[in-house]
């Protein structure tokens, strides 16, 4: 199960990164969002995977999932949302100001492969 979970996280991270390396604003934003999903899963799993732990404190409950990573991930999710929101609006702004949605402000009508 751990291997399965780890693989999933890895694949999500990889896809997110691939998108983040694209040349247009929108895919970059989507990719960073995807990456943040992956990272959240990662961070969550650092407390270990508890399959049937109780969510709330109760006397009959035997084992609990590590609550601290959950709290951290919650914070991370919210911050990630704020950042995504800002960056996507910024992407609109780029389109509005620069006239193209290329991350480097290249014009649309000249699709050039910028060297890197």
């Amino acid at each position, binding site marked *: 199960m751990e291997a399965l979970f780890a693989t999933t996280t890895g694949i999500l991270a990889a896809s997110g990164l691939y998108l*983040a390396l694209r040349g247009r*604003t929108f895919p*970059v934003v989507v990719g*960073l969002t995807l*990456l*943040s999903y992956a*990272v*959240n899963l*990662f*961070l969550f*799993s*650092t*407390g270990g995977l508890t399959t049937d732990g109780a969510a709330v404190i109760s006397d009959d409950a035997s084992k609990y999932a590590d609550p*601290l*990573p959950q709290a*951290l991930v919650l*914070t*991370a999710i919210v*911050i*990630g949302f*704020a*950042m995504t929101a*800002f*960056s996507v609006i*910024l*992407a609109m*702004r*780029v389109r509005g*100001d*620069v006239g193209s949605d290329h*991350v480097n*402000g290249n014009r649309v009508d000249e699709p050039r492969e910028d060297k890197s």
Partner: protein
Amino acid sequence: MQHLIILPVLLPLLTGVALLIHRGGALTLRRTANVLSTIALVVVGVLLVAESTDDAIRYYAVGDWQPPFGIILVLDRLSALMVMLTSVLALGSLLYACAGDDEQGSNFHGLFQLQLMGINGAFLTGDLFNLFVFFEVLLIASYALLMHGGGKARTHAGFHYVALNLLGSMLFLIALGILYGTMGTLNMADMSAVVTTLDTADLGLVKAGALLLLIVFGLKAAMLPLYFWLPRAYAAAPAPIAALFAIMTKVGIYSIIRVYTLIFGEQAGPLANLAQPWVWWLGLATLALGAIGVLSARDMRTQVAYLILVSVGTLLAGIGMHSEAALGALLYYLIHTTLVSGGLFLLVDAIAQQRGKAGARIVQSRTLAQPAILGLMFFAGAIAMAGLPPLSGAFGKAMLLQSATTAQQHWLWPILLGSGLASLIALSRTGSTIFWRASGEKTGVTLGPLRVTGTLMLISCAPLMVAFAGPITAFTQATAAQLLDRDAYVESIIARGDTGGDA
């Protein structure tokens, strides 16, 4: 006053909130409120520094949850120093902004205060995840402020800045996950205690986390392969904001110093000082590249941005030298470079306003309206940044040069002195072009009193730091000693922290 430690976070937060609740409102009112609050912040900073001088390390347990369980704010010499530095820089740039830059867009003053809150929080917190949170606060605020006034260049540079920092935040979270997953704690002092008792099987993981953190901080501090966001963003930002950003790279520097002296310091066994070699070489490279950039700059803003890069390289190299003397020297240099480069950003903007359409570009243009005062300030700022006597830059560099061991001298001396020479040549070219090659009648624009005050306040720190070099260096040396004595730090936080207090 037990709550003093948290004031640098709460004061700006409350002021910012108060300023943001209503979008409209009288401008003068907002300005006065903002300035007053910033002045109060300066006072708090001074008090904190005064309090920290007795070498006791105090902490403030937020929510009365004792470390390592709750979040704590730690006051030692370094954090106090950084907080005060921030407030002074902020005051200068704020005064400048109040001359009109704040009207370019909405909500300037509130965001400004929240930016300060983020920076101060990052300096004060003793909890690694909380550091992440405050990083995000200061980042999002900086995004918003960078966009202040809008414009094509800003939008463009802004997207790069945002995207890169988002990636950085992801890496930060991964590193946090690794460190928590291996050490099971988030309090830095506690980590520093836990790291000594690590199981050898986990060492590799912890190392990965630690080095990832280095990447993150390096990105913030603009270390060599990660600095790319800096020149454009700083050159594009509105002058007061760019001036305030002078502290942003220092946040990265601060974090590197804190984490790699406290958590992965001498005591860390196999992980001891694992970052310093990297920082040393990358710092030297950054220094060299910054010098090249200064020579290559086509306009003044970019030039100052690269000067900041030079100072970052110097600081990183100083960290890499990893000795008490070097640490003390680089702290002195840090104060100097933050304030003066901030002042230069303001000055350059003021000059650009008086040069008609030439703006900040380093080309022949019309005569300035106030050549005397601007020239004087530019001369002083340039000397200080190039590291020539009799101003503060020279002292910092000389101390760094002295503190280098023989092995380090071979690398540090030529590069540091060479970068100084490069800055000297570049700045003399800029100066003679702007003040001497000017021709044609003057533009009507002149510098308002607020702008003069703000700029002068920051630039004049260079001579002041020379006049009071004795006490300041004494303080920084003591700070360095305190930093390297991590046992005292851990003692004063964990020893009392064993019993978790209830609310």
